[in-house]
């Protein structure tokens, strides 16, 4: 599956969509990330790989505001978002999924999507309470978007089911749809292909490429090297909290350090 | 569809419960005897009806008496004591008044305002009693007063010692509530003088409830006026409190005497620790520090309660015969509340009902109220005769403990006192 979409290739001089500068994060004195720099260009598909414990998920959490890094900066569209709250960062256009799939089990599939959209529709809480006319309009719009997303991931039949009744693969698709729902610019996926069957891995790959074609940028953590090689335009390798390599898939495969740390030669 | 059915089931439950709860009011209950826990007076009287009563006559209408008392919760000891006294009184009356069997209806007010409203509502509307005894705690009594007024059913109270009540009953607006127990203010003046005559300074310790706090409000300002300084004022949750810290403080203040306002519940514990710390001051008390129950609780070491001087109304010292009868009946000692319950029933409600019957009137709440208001009964603790604030002035008594037994010291006349400002 060699689908390199040249249309999405970033212009050489374009500023990066996301830039991470010298991030350091420690837990109880143990260094999880050490002076890591990285960037993601608009429209790019970047993978972050490395052995478990190398700091990939920590990096995700630092970017999305769940962790406060001790040093360094995270810039999104040129603006610093380092110490912003997670919800603020989401509203700026970065969404994410989680390694251990997180959905709201007692909400219906449709409501799971709706709740992901609604925060992006209006800012003012008071307005939300009193301006009911607008709410109805928003609500209709939210349902429309949700329906189209359900169609995209193939969960239309389940729309009124409680999310708890979905099987693992379907939950993953729902979580993916939720990440798309607020129309973000950058989508960060944490192991999208883990624990699902081969058919669904292919579906996931297709989805990522399709959505990317519409101009969305992806930052992906993934263990399945088949997936990584197929969908990445660029790969960043972390080991022991440090960036040890960065480059095109083919280059990464040949890199001796990566060979040693990751592929296990 | 599922929801609609659910609603249906729910409605059935609501309706059945609500209507079942109201049933007695919708159709007045047939005269069933109440199962008072210790006695079945009604049953007994029906059979042992004295021959003087017209034997051929059909059983007469029952007299329904409601008990609005804290029967569970922290103040349960109070309601329970009342009820023991009332039950004994009914037994001594033979379970009936002039052939009218007495029925008791319980309503637990838990000693709180909200539950007191519920309790009086039940007695007035469901049980449709002609007269009530109780209240017990001042706050419960205060909350029940509007309902008593609206329900137009007389109520006799023996232990709500809050002076506020005085201004609100009788000519104060509520003619249905009567107090045979005197309040803190009425008792306080005499006792403050008595204490100030003997000591120059006092440490005050009270139960942290309506009883102790209410007394504090009276004694702490009154004592200095009588000439005794109050060096400390402390309140403790009754029962589990460790008084040692307070006793240490009293020691450090070096007061001549200690005034404790405690029920039987806490007094024994307090005095035990008082002796432990080695304090030797004179102890003045209000509440339950010379009662039989106190002495029962300190029987392991009679020195604990030795020499306490206690001031109270309804104290067995004034009516030792009652104390004996009570002990014979229950194998337990008399306390103020047990005393109050007995006097409320035997010397207040019963004579009033007899008066109504003697006049050939119907036993309506209103007639009973008028009869209570007109009462003038001599008892061992003085007259039960109500003033225009529906307050009776029985005698106060001074008692002390000697060798583990209560000893009667003196009687004190209680007089009406100006209640303005309360």
């Amino acid at each position: 599956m060699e689908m390199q979409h040249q249309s999405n290739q970033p212009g050489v001089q374009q500023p990066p969509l996301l830039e991470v500068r010298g991030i350091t994060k420690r837990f109880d004195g143990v260094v999880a990330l050490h002076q890591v720099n990285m960037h993601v260009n608009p429209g790019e598909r970047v993978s972050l790989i490395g052995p478990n414990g190398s700091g990939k998920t920590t990096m995700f959490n630092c970017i999305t505001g769940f962790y406060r890094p001790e040093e360094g900066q995270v810039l999104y569209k040129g603006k610093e978002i380092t110490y912003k709250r997670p919800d603020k960062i989401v509203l700026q256009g970065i969404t994410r999924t989680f390694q251990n799939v997180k959905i709201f089990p007692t909400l219906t599939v449709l409501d799971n999507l709706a709740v992901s959209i609604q925060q992006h529709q209006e800012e003012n809480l008071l307005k939300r309470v009193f301006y009911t006319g607008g709410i109805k309009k928003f609500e209709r719009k939210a349902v429309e978007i949700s329906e189209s997303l359900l169609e995209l991931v193939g969960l239309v039949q389940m729309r009124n089911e409680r999310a708890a009744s979905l099987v693992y693969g379907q939950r993953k698709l729902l979580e993916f749809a939720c990440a798309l729902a607020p129309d973000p610019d950058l989508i960060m996926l944490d192991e999208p292909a883990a624990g699902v069957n081969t058919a669904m891995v292919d579906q996931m790959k297709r989805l990522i490429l399709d959505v990317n074609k519409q101009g969305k940028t992806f930052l992906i953590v993934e263990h399945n090297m088949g997936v990584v090689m197929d969908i990445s335009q660029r790969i960043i390798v972390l080991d022991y909290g440090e960036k040890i390599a960065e480059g095109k898939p083919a280059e990464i495969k040949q890199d001796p350090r990566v060979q040693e740390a990751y592929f296990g030669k | 569809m599922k929801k609609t059915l659910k609603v249906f089931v729910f409605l059935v439950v609501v309706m059945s419960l609500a209507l079942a709860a109201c049933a007695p009011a919708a159709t007045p209950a047939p005269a069933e005897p109440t199962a008072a826990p210790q006695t079945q007076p009604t049953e007994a009287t029906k059979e042992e009806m004295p021959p003087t009563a017209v034997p051929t006559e059909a059983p007469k209408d029952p007299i329904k008496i409601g008990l609005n008392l804290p029967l569970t919760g922290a103040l349960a000891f109070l309601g329970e004591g009342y009820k023991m006294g009332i039950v004994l009184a009914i037994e001594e009356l033979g379970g009936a008044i002039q052939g009218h069997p007495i029925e008791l209806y319980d309503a637990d007010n838990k000693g709180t305002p909200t539950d007191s409203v519920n309790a009086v509502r039940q007695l007035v509307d469901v049980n449709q009693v002609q007269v009530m005894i109780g209240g017990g705690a001042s706050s419960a009594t205060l909350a029940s007063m509007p309902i008593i007024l609206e329900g137009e059913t007389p109520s006799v109270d023996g232990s709500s010692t809050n002076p506020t009540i005085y201004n609100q009953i009788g000519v104060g607006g509520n003619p249905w509530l009567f107090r045979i127990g005197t309040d803190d203010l009425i008792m306080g003046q005499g006792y403050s003088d008595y204490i100030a005559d003997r000591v120059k300074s006092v440490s005050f310790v009270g139960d942290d409830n309506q009883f102790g706090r209410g007394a504090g409000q009276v004694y702490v300002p009154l004592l200095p006026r009588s000439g005794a300084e109050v060096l400390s004022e402390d309140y403790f949750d009754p029962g589990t409190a460790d008084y040692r810290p307070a006793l240490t403080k009293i020691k450090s203040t070096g007061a001549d005497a200690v005034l404790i306002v405690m029920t039987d519940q806490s007094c024994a514990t307090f005095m035990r620790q008082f002796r432990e710390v080695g304090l030797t001051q004179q102890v003045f008390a209000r509440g339950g520090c010379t009662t039989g129950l106190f002495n029962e609780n300190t029987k392991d070491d009679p020195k604990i309660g030795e020499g306490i001087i206690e001031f109270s109304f309804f104290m067995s010292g004034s009516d030792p015969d009652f104390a004996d009868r009570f002990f014979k009946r229950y194998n337990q000692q008399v306390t103020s509340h047990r005393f109050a319950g007995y006097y409320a029933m035997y010397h207040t409600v019963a004579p009033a009902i007899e008066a109504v019957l003697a006049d050939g009137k119907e036993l309506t709440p209103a007639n009973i109220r008028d009869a209570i208001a007109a009462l003038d009964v001599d008892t061992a603790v003085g007259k039960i005769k109500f003033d225009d604030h529906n307050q009776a002035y029985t005698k106060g008594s001074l008692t002390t403990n000697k060798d583990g037994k209560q000893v009667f010291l003196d009687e004190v006349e209680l007089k009406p006192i100006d209640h303005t400002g309360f």
Partner: protein
Amino acid sequence: MNISKQSLRPFILPIVLLVIMALLPLFNQSGFTLNVLINVVRWLIFALAFDLVAGHIGSVSLGQPIFYGIGAYLTAYLAGKLGLGWLGCMLVSAFFMALLALLAGLAFFRIRHVTFAIGTLGAAIVTQLVANSAEKLTGGALCTTGVPRPQLLLPFMESAIKISKPIQFYYLFLPFLILTLVVYLAVTKSRIGRAFTAVREDEVRASAVGIYPLRYKLVAFALSGALIGALGSWQAQYVTVICPSDMAQDITTSLLIMVFVGGAGRLSGVIIGGVIFSILPPFLQAVGSKYFQPAYQQILYGLILVGVMLYMPDGLDGLASRILRRFRGIRKEGV
């Protein structure tokens, strides 16, 4: 709004409830019945407000009686000393209790789960003890007495009616239940309710879809505080006496029982739990008083409670649904 069967569904139960509640006095007007009904209304409002926090946000606050008590004491001051009208008292109490809830929420939402529950319980005890000791402010253990009863003055009336009869109280009180139900439904069946659910189920995930958990927790807490504050204000004017015991643990216990035995986070559950457990005690007492002593009534109450917890894991609401499902199953087979 397109009126579909779906969108009307949540309104069926409250409307049926209200109709029944409104009509019951036509059949039985005894003061006792009305008092029971007033208690049902009071507990329903209390339980609904409690459920907004405990059921929908998932933070079991054992400190809700604080708002009730302070609302009541505030009313005693406003109505007694300043002569403010009943509605004014309720509004002012609601406002200040919402404010207090916001402040308390900022502090307490730093802790979670059991710690939150026990922490708020601690706060409730502190408040009750202060009310008990601050005699100048609250009357202490001797209570604040003589709160004026409401006076109703409508435009067409010449003079105000003094509300003192139970039936007057009841019908004046009922609209407050309607308002509470409306607020409860408006909040929980809307996008705010959806966000509440999100916060309750997974705060991390909620943050990841742009929800700021603390904000929604505060909204729920403040709403709950406002409703309970107004309720306390009402209760003060109905009973006319306010004591520290009005903030006692028993109230929290009753709330826990109503909401969690009924079915937390579900309107049907709260209504079933609220109605049953506010009728049960007076029912046990009025009907059972001939047969049991109050202590035995309480024991029975405790046994019912433990029994429900042991044998009905999904609450009374869940039990009702299960029975209905079985009924429906049988009916379908029959047809």
